[in-house]
């Protein structure tokens, strides 16, 4: 007998909530500042980018861990994945530039 599948839930919220919007905006801001900080000789900005990239990660984690949340989880997951990627890049860039250049 085939395993019974859950029917799609039409009541599942499709809109992005306030927590998701916060993760979206902070991720975009971090990526924009990160882009500037990657320019040669602007490496010192990575001291700002590294802690800033933790903000979408924390918002995403908090949003995902809220029980019975009706939030659409896409932007929260994007905040975690994107924030971690930018954090890794900025730390590597800090090491390459000696924290200054």
């Amino acid at each position, binding site marked *: 007998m085939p395993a019974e599948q859950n029917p*799609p*839930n039409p009541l599942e919220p499709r809109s992005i909530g306030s927590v998701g919007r916060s993760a*979206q905006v902070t991720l975009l801001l971090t990526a924009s500042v990160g*882009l500037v900080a*990657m320019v*040669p000789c602007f490496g010192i900005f990575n001291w700002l980018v590294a802690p800033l990239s933790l903000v979408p990660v924390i918002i995403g984690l908090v949003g995902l861990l809220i029980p019975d949340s009706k939030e659409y989880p*896409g932007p929260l*997951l994007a905040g975690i994945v994107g924030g971690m990627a930018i954090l890794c890049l900025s730390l590597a*860039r800090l090491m*390459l530039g000696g924290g200054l250049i």
Partner: protein
Amino acid sequence: MEVLAVLLVLLSAACVMGGLVFSVLPGIPGPPFSAISPLLALFGLQAGGFPVSTPLWITAAIFACLGALVTVADLLAPLAGKLLGGTSRGAVIGSYYGLGLAMLFSLHLGGVSGAGSLITLGLSLVVGAGISVALMIMGPLLGGFVGELASRPVPKKNGMVPYGMGPMVKHAARAGIAQFLGLLLTTTTKFLYGAGSALLCTGLVAWALYQGWA
């Protein structure tokens, strides 16, 4: 008159460089620069008193028309991605962010590994190049994935909303791959067109100089 000729040929060379650079960098389209560079070179040669025959003008004009087609195709590429792969604007923006971050990081990595190769006898250069290539692939791919994930919910299927992380991640991964392949295709086409423009400019100038001196 000769000053004008030199200026036009130099402007043509600058356009060739601009076409090659902006074919990779997002923001400014590169093909228009590549398209006008052979025409500028021919105008410069004509201003300098070199004989420029009609077939050369026709070749440059055909190349410019081809450039217009490449530009239109480049502008329509995101729309095609939207229609074919179901990617959103967020995926497009995300992949450009990913590409920009990867490119700028690779630029710095290239400098550091180049300097380090003096000590490591070229080994760091090979490692740096490998990391750069991996980053250039992973950047737009991950950027498209994150952008699609962040931008909008999974589209409805049979009037119902699929729920859970599985369909969401699957949809975003598909959009990220589609966006990456689209970006790869358009960037390669633009870069090849720019390289063709550089070759054509060199050939046209060499041919006109040969005709003038022969």
